[in-house]
């Protein structure tokens, strides 16, 4: 059951990501990204991280991507124009670079597998234990400093946006 979900939504995520690159209209690309986010949420859920799945849907699909689409609508952006000749550096470095990054990431994750801890498909789905309390406990005890620093970073970003917007007025 869970392996079927994993296959369907994993393929959907990859297809959405490819569609994001190949679509020429920004709103279609943004909608493909929404599909990727939702598929990722289902994958999280099938790994037993239901709070992460809900947060993914609410924050990324429901707020961030809506803002993307809002901006596209507001600017009335049209279809992108493909220039006849792309950057030559992109052609030379693109595919080897992407392959190198993929190899590096998979090497790191595979070699550090024992430290990262393991989860199984459908891990906690059958039990009624919620992982919200566990997440919040970790977040507010051992990871308190990174959490607070991140919130200050976001606050600074908001203030910066306000400053930039005030200049226009």
């Amino acid at each position, binding site marked *: 059951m869970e392996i079927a979900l994993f296959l369907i939504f994993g393929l959907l995520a990859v297809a959405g990501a490819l569609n994001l690159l190949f679509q020429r209209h920004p709103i279609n690309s943004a*909608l493909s990204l929404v599909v990727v986010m939702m598929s990722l949420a289902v994958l999280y859920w099938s790994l037993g991280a239901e709070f992460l799945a*809900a947060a993914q849907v*609410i924050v990324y699909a*429901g707020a961030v991507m809506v803002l993307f*689409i809002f901006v596209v*609508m507001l600017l009335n952006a049209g279809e992108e124009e493909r220039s006849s000749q792309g950057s030559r550096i992109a052609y030379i470095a693109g595919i080897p670079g992407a392959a190198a990054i993929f190899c590096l990431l998979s090497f790191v994750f595979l070699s550090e597998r024992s430290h990262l801890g393991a989860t199984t498909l459908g891990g906690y789905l059958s039990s009624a234990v*919620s992982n919200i309390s566990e997440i919040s406990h970790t977040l507010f005890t051992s990871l308190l400093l990174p959490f607070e620093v991140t919130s200050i970073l976001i606050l600074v970003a908001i203030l910066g946006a306000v400053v930039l917007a005030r200049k226009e007025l």
Partner: protein
Amino acid sequence: MSHLNNFEIFLLLTIVKIAIVLVITLMSVAYTVLLERKVLGRLQNRWGPSRVGPFGLLQPLVDGLKLFLKEDMMPLAVERPLFILAPIIALGCALISISVVPFGAVTLVHGVDLFQIANLNIGLLVILGVTSIGVYGVALSGWSSNSKYSLFGSLRSTAQMISYELALGLSLVGVVMRAQSLSLRDIVASQSAHGAISWNLFGGLQFIAFFIYLMAAYAETNRSPFDLSEAESELVAGYHTEYSSMKFAMFFMAEYANMITVSCVATLLFLGGASSPFGHLFDHIASGPILTALISIFWFVAKVFSFLLLYIWVRGTLPRFRYDQLMAFGWKFLLPVAMVNILATALALTYHG
């Protein structure tokens, strides 16, 4: 049902539950429209629909038939796939969110809860998530229509829904902290001890959160006095200006289905869900499993119905906000008050709970 195994029983009962809940939701959407037209009529000193059937009771069916038989106009300059997708997203999200709502007391048949389609341990977050996906229906309909009225309507509506989603979500945090769970069953169970006294609205001292939720919910469903996205004096009909026939009907049904969902959530979170306001005072009079189940459903429906009446009453009474007033109200008043409420609830729970 002895020759079926557990999974088959679960599957069959779930399909039956989904079908029944879908039919009942759509029927109640239709009759909420009639209720609104009747009550609004009486508020404005006129009769409302009274011709079709006794007291106009068949009016929703005839309206549905009319919309179904109308010509489905598709303007030439629309973005076709998104134009068709938008009403499906809107109605789909509105109907999906009802699936985690518990309608009655826990009634197990072969291990399957009869009065709730899915009991998730993050039920409340699922409702919030599905509601936030519903914004796409409005946003895409306005953009794909290729019309300035639709675009303005959907821009207004999207900005309004994103802004009020924050106040809506924050107003529910106090309730979640009291129940210590995001499961809607647990939240209901946390308030059902002594009837109305232990409801979050009264005994839980969450009345500030309740009023924030109420106002944010009106804005979230684009209802009066926050119905700027379809301000007919400025924008023709807002984001569904270019829609006709069944596609228009889908937006219309989505709006009323959202109203019903929001009323259900308010009932579950603040008014004790399907529990009786008298607590267990009269339990000895109405005993027996069937009667208990029916009484719990009666209380749930009565609470949701009173919320819908409140919706209509507000629409008949209050004038529409101006757009800057709407935004200032959401960001400068509702959001800070919701945060103060969270702090106060947390402090109270720390020192007394």
